[in-house]
């Protein structure tokens, strides 16, 4: 093959000299391409997977416009300095201060606040509003259920999900990229705080309702909160509401003393069926039935009316403390 290539090369050379008499560009197989590409691929492989590039490092990036658009996108009028403070992580602020001190810039100019105050404020507002909303939307659920659902809605995971989908990832001023779940969640709380500072608490409440409470839509509430000892809770609830003593009864069973045994237990109180449940043994079936009865009593089963997210709760119902 190489002999053939060199022969064609020599032939081309002689032809170009013979015909034109001058120097002509020769066209032949570029033998450097493949080794170069192979070497480049080898080096990339040797370096391992690379971290994603922050969007703010691109040429087409204007932080001020991004901040402005962030507020407009959410239909909110933020004060831009406050919003920027909300995005400023304390670690980043410290790093910047260190950098400026090393460069010898005067201390007085570097007083740029970080978002820790706004985080505290936003977290307080969000908690108060979510609690008030749950009290309105799920009035029959006991206190412990409200607490569990609030914890779920305000957990780092779900707040980070909201925050990410509002586009904070590229705007956060932080030492790490991509920002961690905790940073994303904290930033969302800081944004709520900044909104309360710039537009008043009412707007912040609506923000919490529209972006945090809506996460409950189409969720299985039982997955968020399952009562620990359902039978005991059920008897307590029945006593409170004067429904009579709950009593489990075997409705049906199938495949007794086999591996695939199934029991169907119903819970009655005052001759009324409260709930039904299945299980591999009677105890498990009773527990499932009790949970089913509690779901019906607390009005949190699958077929409940959808949550109303257009409600405007009055400020007096929100316990800001």
């Amino acid at each position, binding site marked *: 093959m190489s002999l053939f290539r060199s022969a064609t090369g020599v032939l081309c050379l002689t032809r170009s000299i013979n015909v034109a008499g001058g120097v002509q560009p020769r066209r032949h197989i570029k033998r450097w391409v493949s080794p170069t590409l192979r070497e480049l691929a080898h080096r990339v492989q040797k370096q391992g997977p690379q971290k994603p590039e922050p969007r703010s490092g691109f040429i087409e990036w204007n932080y001020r416009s991004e901040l402005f*658009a962030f507020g407009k996108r959410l239909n909110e009028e933020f004060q831009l300095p406050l919003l920027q403070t909300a995005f400023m992580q304390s670690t980043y602020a410290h790093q910047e201060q260190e950098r400026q001190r090393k460069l010898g810039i005067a201390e007085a100019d570097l007083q740029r606040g970080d978002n820790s105050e706004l985080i505290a404020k936003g977290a307080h507002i969000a908690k108060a509003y979510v609690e008030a909303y749950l009290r309105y939307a799920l009035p029959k659920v006991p206190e412990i259920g409200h607490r569990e659902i609030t914890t779920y809605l305000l957990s780092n995971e779900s707040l980070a999900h909201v925050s990410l989908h509002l586009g904070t990832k590229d705007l956060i001023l932080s030492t790490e990229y991509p920002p961690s779940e905790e940073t994303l969640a904290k930033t969302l709380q800081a944004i709520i705080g900044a909104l309360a500072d710039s537009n008043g608490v009412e707007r912040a409440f609506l923000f919490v309702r*529209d972006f945090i409470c809506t996460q409950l839509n189409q*969720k299985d509430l039982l997955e968020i909160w399952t009562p620990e000892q359902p039978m005991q809770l059920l008897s307590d609830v029945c006593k409170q509401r004067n429904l009579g003593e709950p009593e489990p009864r075997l409705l049906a069973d199938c495949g007794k003393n086999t591996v695939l045994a199934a029991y169907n237990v119903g819970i009655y109180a005052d001759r009324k069926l409260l709930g039904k449940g299945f299980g591999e043994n009677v105890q498990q079936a009773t527990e499932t039935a009790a949970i089913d009865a509690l779901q019906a009593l607390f009005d949190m089963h*699958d077929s409940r009316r959808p949550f109303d997210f257009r409600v405007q709760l009055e400020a007096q119902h929100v316990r800001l403390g």
Partner: protein
Amino acid sequence: MSNSHLFLKSGFPRAPLQNGLGRYVCQLQRLTLKFCKNNGSSKGMRDFIENHLVDFAKENPGIVVYVKPRRHRTPVLVGEYLNGEREWMSCRNNTQEEITKWIDLLKTQNGNSSSLRLRKMWHTDVPSIQGPWTPFLLRSPDAQNQSYPSEQASKPLDVPQSATEKLLELFKQQQLEGGQELLTKKRAE
């Protein structure tokens, strides 16, 4: 589904972040227009930038628009969405009307819609409100007190009559009729 769709990402139509509940958030967050200042293929893009871009930016303050001139390259639209997706679209030789329409498309979707194969045109998190069917559902009350194994319940529902049974039945009928005939004969005597 054709062969070209085999390796396409598949999914369901979903609104990110329950968008539209509470308030609507436009999912396009950034739009970059790349074009050449003197190449003919960028004519439509240049016209769009001259005539419509400022109006577009005023109408959509939530979208950050970047304009990036570069020499002798094809005009390109790049949209970035809130869910982190990025869509690249070549606008070579497009007129300004076409570009307006493409931008309108970018504005109203939440990712590259042609890069997703829809498995179904709808999606629900609660497939059945009534719950799944179980053998205990709507059972007849007779089955409640049945003790198993029971002879009655073990028989097939459609057993055809055997020849012996048919003969027996015929014989019984004959005997009944025969008996009556005998009685009438004796009475007549």
